[in-house]
């Protein structure tokens, strides 16, 4: 289907089902239960999962296929966000032109940076991209404040000179982002017994774009172009002596992944019209590197998993506090309860970084291929057990 082979079609369908049913899947616990803390099915976080998924998918096209490790990809995300917010300020609150502009501008920016950085390879390339991104961040935070609004981030105001649309709504507030009239923040809620599920228009737009981005990434992976990119990673020398010019291949991959980052940035701004400079900081670039490696670089689904993993910890674990812990363990005798809370305390709330750091180490030590390898091992183990059962029963039967 869709020009994909069976395996890829299955993967795409699985991802489609997962993203479209995310409001259910991510909210497994009843709203009032103690475990509701772990629910992730609210619009903002779901949007973030999907948007960072797009970012990581794009990054993986560069890093996973060509092996070029960019440490400055957040710059494209940031540029995308700024472009989108400027579009909202100047043109229209419709997200379509904003997203288009952010993809185009970040593509051009990637072309420029890629053209220079790709003159070097290996760590020298990484440091060049890092240097460009840090320059962008430092300037955006300070000297470029008229364009970026510096520390606070670029926001909408009540006096934006919007060409198509009004500066302020009748009741004196800033108009909201929309897709041809459908407000991105509008949410449909469904209560199902003790459960509550939220269906957000913005999330579904992001989800559909993620599916398109994912589909495109599969096509790229399976195309001759994708094969050439893998060949670049494998042996550039042989590429050159096979009559292939590696530079445009890597540059194309760089620009494509920069456009993915811009798309993610534009979507972020469309969901929440603010573009902060720290989106371009090296830590943000490092984050997408970690997402990709954590999930499994070079695999199709890995980066999306990695993005979800990190964003989940950032948003869910950081919100667990001692109060919540006490409410979970209140069934225990007092002394024991305090002890358990004391033990867990360093790892939650303000300690969420610690937990994430430990998990990075565990994953990379025990699952060299990232989370995808974890999944494969589980699948193998399940299959193996089934086979063993089968063979066990097969050997048993004659014995009886």
């Amino acid at each position, binding site marked *: 289907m869709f020009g994909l082979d069976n395996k890829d079609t299955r993967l795409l369908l699985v991802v489609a089902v997962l993203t479209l049913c995310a409001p259910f899947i991510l909210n497994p616990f009843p*709203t*009032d239960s103690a475990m509701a803390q772990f*629910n992730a099915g*609210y*619009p*903002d*976080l779901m949007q*973030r999962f999907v948007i960072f998924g797009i970012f990581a998918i794009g990054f993986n096209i560069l890093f996973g296929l060509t092996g070029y490790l960019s440490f400055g990809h957040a710059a494209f995300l940031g540029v995308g966000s700024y472009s989108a917010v400027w579009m909202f300020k100047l043109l229209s609150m419709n997200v379509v032109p904003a997203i288009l502009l952010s993809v185009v501008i970040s593509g051009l920016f990637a072309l420029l940076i890629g053209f220079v950085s790709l003159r070097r390879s290996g760590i020298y390339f990484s440091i060049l991209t890092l240097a460009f991104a840090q320059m962008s961040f*430092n300037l955006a*935070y*300070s*000297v470029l*404040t008229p364009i970026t*609004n*510096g*520390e*606070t*981030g670029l*926001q*909408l*105001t*009540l*006096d934006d000179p919007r060409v198509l649309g009004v500066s*302020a709504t009748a*009741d*004196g*507030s*800033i108009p*909201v982002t929309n897709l041809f009239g459908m*407000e991105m*923040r*509008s*949410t*449909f*809620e*469904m*209560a*199902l*017994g*003790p*459960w*509550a599920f*939220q269906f957000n228009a913005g999330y579904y737009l992001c989800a559909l774009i993620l599916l398109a981005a994912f589909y495109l990434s599969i096509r790229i992976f399976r195309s001759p172009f994708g094969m050439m990119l893998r060949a670049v990673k494998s042996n550039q020398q042989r590429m050159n002596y096979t009559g292939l010019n590696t530079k445009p291949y890597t540059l194309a991959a760089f620009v494509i992944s920069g456009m993915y980052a811009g798309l993610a940035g534009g979507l972020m701004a469309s969901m*929440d019209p*603010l573009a*902060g400079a*720290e*989106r371009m900081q090296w830590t943000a670039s490092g984050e997408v590197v970690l997402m990709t490696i954590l999930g499994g670089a070079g695999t199709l689904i890995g980066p999306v998993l990695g993005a979800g993993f990190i964003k989940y910890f*950032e*948003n869910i674990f*950081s*919100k667990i*506090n001692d*109060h919540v812990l006490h409410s979970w363990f209140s069934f225990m005798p007092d002394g024991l309860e305090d002890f358990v809370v004391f033990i867990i305390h360093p790892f939650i*709330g*303000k300690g*969420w*970084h610690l937990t994430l750091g430990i998990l990075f180490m565990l994953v990379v030590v025990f699952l060299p291929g990232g989370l995808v390898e974890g999944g494969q091992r589980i699948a193998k183990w399940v299959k193996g057990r089934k086979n063993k059962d089968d063979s066990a029963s097969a050997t048993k039967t004659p014995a009886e």
Partner: protein
Amino acid sequence: MSKSAFSRRGVLKSGALAGTGLALPTIFTASSAAAFTNNPTGSSVTLGFNVPQTGPYADEGADELRAYQLAVEHLNGGGDGGMMNTFSSKELQGNGILGKEVKFVTGDTQTKSDAARASAKSMIEKDGAVMITGGSSSGVAIAVQGLCQEAGVIFMAGLTHSNDTTGKDKKANGFRHFFNGYMSGAALAPVLKNLYGTDRNAYHLTADYTWGWTQEESIAAATEALGWNTVEKVRTPLAATDFSSYIAPVLNSGADVLVLNHYGGNMVNSLTNAVQFGLREKVVNGKNFEIVVPLYSRLMAKGAGANVKGIHGSTNWHWSLQDEGSQAFVRSFGTKYGFPPSQAAHTVYCQTLLYADAVQRAGSFNPCAVVEALEDYEFDGLGNGKTLYRGEDHQCFKDVLVVRGKENPTSEFDLLEVVEVTPAAQVTYPADHPMFAGGALGSCNSGA
């Protein structure tokens, strides 16, 4: 199908009650049931405490969280009641807010506007928070204030000192109790005049982002009004750790006062470096060289150690104040945690009480009712003397403290001493002051 701007968990709860569990799932849609975002319909109300828990301001965030928990305890009738007893309004009964038990959720801003908004959104969308408060930097406060305006919840700013928070970026749903750069300048100027005279040459080192700029502008204007000359204004990168190359030129610039418009780690390092370079022992133009740190905080003073001795600055509040309100707060905070509260803790405690009181007086959690109750509200007993929440820009006008690094501290908390309490009238400015111009409050948004 209906559309609503943000989650309405309160409604969902009643929806859940209406349903009869799994056997008979009820699909409930929020139609016109809610009058505003996250209307608390159950027996409790949830507040969102959004503070930096990781990153350079984590300790301030931790102190803010302590104060919030204390405030919640007091609102729910626990503890000794703290400043609720000294507060001029006696509406709060110690039975929660409007009889609803106060619950809270916490989040990590990471001192990044993106992360802060994500965290605030999760409080609004997932936890049904009806008010968001916190923050330890102006960028974050402004970003979250904007979000709360869009979402239709109240934002009670924490530690944010930029003029912009209630200046060009002010919002109808946002309120600031903390003082600002202009007030620092206005409070410091007379003291500096008395101490150092009117013939001085000031050299500014300024953190290169919006907060730094507004403070630099405020202090330069205030000191120039005294007759001081501003020799140079130098911007330093936020990421700078070693300020030696910025301090060194001061030596030969002919300046005799160094103004450090830095906060947090930047301030600790720039002050340490300035002292290292022997600036304090220097005599320029026949006068002793002086250093001024316009925005002081005890936590920062601790980081700079002995270097703060004798250095002047301004602060919103200090635990050594002897008024009834401050004493009550220090007592209940100190008894619970074993050390005195910081100014960040004080301001967020006040903000929580002020919000609760406003709801109580308005008789509703509706943000627009709360805004109305807070605008032009005058109160006393919260440690800063008589205070006005001005309706035009949602800024509190109250006394500002000028403090000095103590020469002989008796304990690790006893680092600053109050030199002067500048009365509110002296730091008050018209709402249309040029430093606060541009931008408008807009109208309150209840999310309906």
